[in-house]
């Protein structure tokens, strides 16, 4: 069975060029970047080249990029690193109700550690209001963490407005750009961003690597102690081959961004249109306009998400919804709860489709048709 993968927001397949590049590095760059011999220098060179490209991709300087083991570590480093070092200026943190768990659960830990966290609400499209943020800001706010684009419904947050609001406030501004990086154009100076998290495996790079941008005037407390890697802010031998692959992925993402955006926006339209033609009852969670091009979250009244996902999977179509707990069952999405309330039926009848470089128009059409079939069976 030809399978269709529409879960690129969960993780994206590695680009063949990324694999090729990693293969090359795995084979021919065996050294440890901290070693002072030729093997070490060759490894270090890979890091430096990657760092340069990544810095440039968000308008940052090379020494503002810290390689991490992925988006979760980047988010955790940002939150704990700022909280620890700036707590003398206050113990108040602001975030949103729709952040990734890497931010939300880190915030909950901060609460345990004596910090106060304000979780901003969102409207029905999943967007916060800047005036809510303004109202929540206090003299003792030291950190504001608002994601760039939501991983479940795709909604973009008003990052630039937030940055402008915060630029004269002591609070550091962190944005989790894990889902948006690569598909959205971003500039840390334009948006007054102090910290920004990125993951490689969301942009066709390898799993297990990412970076945290930290503006040079931000003093970040480290979370991993050991060697002096990453200028003592993140100990541990750097993942050279993966970083080189990440580098390649960034290059590709930068090059193909416009083309992809157009393609994915078109896919959304096709999907919606085909479902309408097939008389499927559905609603869009989020908005089609102010949204990441590659994420489409749909609610199908009268269906059940677990049955939907399994049916589609058995039909060879991989989509997702919320997140699975360690015992495999689907938990209601906190994002949809924030958008529609705890009692909304959307919590149990919504699925997310997300597109990637390999997605084709045929796959979209086939998915729409299979979805229509499943919906009609489940509503019987």
């Amino acid at each position, binding site marked *: 069975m030809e399978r269709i993968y529409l879960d690129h927001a969960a993780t994206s397949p590695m680009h063949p060029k990324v694999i090729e590049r990693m293969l090359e590095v795995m084979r021919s760059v065996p050294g440890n970047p901290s070693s002072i011999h030729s093997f070490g220098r060759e490894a270090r060179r890979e890091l430096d080249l990657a760092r340069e490209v990544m810095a440039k991709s968000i308008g940052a300087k090379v020494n503002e990029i810290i390689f991490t083991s992925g988006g979760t570590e980047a988010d955790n480093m940002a939150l704990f690193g700022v909280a620890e070092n700036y707590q003398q200026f206050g113990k108040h943190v602001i975030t949103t109700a729709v952040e990734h768990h890497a931010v939300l659960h880190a915030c909950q830990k901060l609460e345990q550690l004596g910090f106060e966290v304000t979780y901003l609400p969102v409207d029905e499209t999943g967007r916060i209001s800047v005036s809510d943020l303004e109202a929540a800001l206090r003299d003792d706010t030291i950190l504001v963490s608002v994601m760039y684009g939501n991983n479940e419904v795709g909604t973009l947050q008003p990052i630039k407005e937030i940055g402008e609001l915060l630029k004269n406030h002591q609070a550091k501004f962190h944005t989790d750009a894990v889902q948006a990086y690569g598909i959205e154009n971003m500039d840390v100076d334009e948006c007054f961003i102090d910290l920004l998290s990125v993951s490689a495996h969301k942009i066709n790079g390898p799993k297990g690597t990412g970076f945290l941008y930290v503006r040079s005037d931000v003093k970040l407390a480290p979370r991993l102690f050991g060697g002096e890697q990453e200028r003592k802010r993140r100990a541990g031998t750097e993942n050279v081959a993966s970083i080189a692959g990440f580098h390649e992925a960034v290059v590709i993402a930068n090059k193909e961004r416009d083309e992809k955006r157009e393609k994915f926006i078109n896919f959304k339209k096709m999907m919606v249109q085909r479902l309408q033609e097939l008389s499927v009852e559905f609603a869009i969670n989020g908005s089609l306009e102010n949204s990441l091009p590659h994420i489409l979250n749909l609610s199908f009244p009268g269906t059940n998400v677990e049955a939907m996902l399994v*049916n589609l*999977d*058995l039909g060879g179509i991989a989509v997702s919804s919320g997140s699975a*707990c360690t015992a495999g*069952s689907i938990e209601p999405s906190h994002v949809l709860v924030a958008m529609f309330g705890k009692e909304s039926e959307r919590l149990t009848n919504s699925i997310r489709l997300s597109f990637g470089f390999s997605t084709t128009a045929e796959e979209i059409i086939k998915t729409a048709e299979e979805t229509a079939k499943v919906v009609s*069976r489940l509503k019987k």
Partner: protein
Amino acid sequence: MEQKDPKNTRVVVGMSGGVDSSVAALLLKQQGYDVIGIFMKNWDDTDDNGVCTATEDYNDVIRVCNQIGIPYYAVNFEKQYWDKVFTYFLEEYKAGRTPNPDVMCNKEIKFKAFLEHAMSLGADYLATGHYARVVYRDGEYKMLRGIDENKDQTYFLNQLTQEQLSKVMFPIGHLEKAKVREIAKQANLATAGKKDSTGICFIGERNFKEFLSQYLPAQPGNMETFEGEIKGRHEGLMYHTIGQRHGLGIGGAGEPWFAIGKDLKRNVLYVGQGFHNEKLYSDAIIATNVSWVSNRPKPTEFDCTAKFRYRQEDHKVTVRLLEGERCQVFFHEPIRAVTPGQSAVFYNGEECLGGGTIDEVYKNGERLTYVG
């Protein structure tokens, strides 16, 4: 009954992470069915690390499914389980009875909500690792005891109907438990050496008293003999089951002490000496919620055998049908510790005829109001 080619027959196996359902799935796969393993999450609880207590079991399901080579999923019936099983469980305890949540779980969850879920996935059958058999014979489905008498689970399945049985497979019902373990071991299944789970699913290996006390306020009271002699204190009537000896803590001379009855109004636990204390014996019951496997008309009164507890030997009884899914059951000999809330399950030889819930217990034509 028309048989489809196994490879075009989709079977959803309810997998618990135990050896029985693992082997059930394995056998079906070997028989060429289109097998899907599904783990039910019925209870939401977390361990010290905040991890679902069901995680280990699900991990075992995953390992086994990967070994067998079948897709696996999980499904969440927490809400249904709470509403239909756990609420009933608590109500019964509150009423001084001893409920059987496994029977209710099979009736309301496994062979209802879960069966529906399986059907919504295009399944032809739902299979489980129960020790029981289904046969289509003489134009209807019959439920037979599992071959392994010691493991037979028809007692818990007594509420199943023709419609349910038409969609159900029990792939290990024809095997001895030892054989099941042997198959698992030979196939090197991850669960081959796993101990059978004990206790009620949502309580797991935890202390039953502690668990129950989270949901029902324990009301300590007196332990008395029927003669009115106070023999000590109990921590809550719900912690005691008629006929049981443990946990009373009454010492002294003579035969050991047993729980033999409850006075709910006075919150008194009646105790008496001797395993065969005559107060523990009854000779008839009225059962409610009686369900019969066969849809065919029955005589108003007939003889068969019955079990009043899981793993009890069969007792000869006469059943007289009453209105409203009720029946009277007359024991041919007095039976010890027949307890309201438990199931009365009827058999004809190896065939399970159906069953109901023990509601009222009689002796010599008089209702024993103290049992519970």
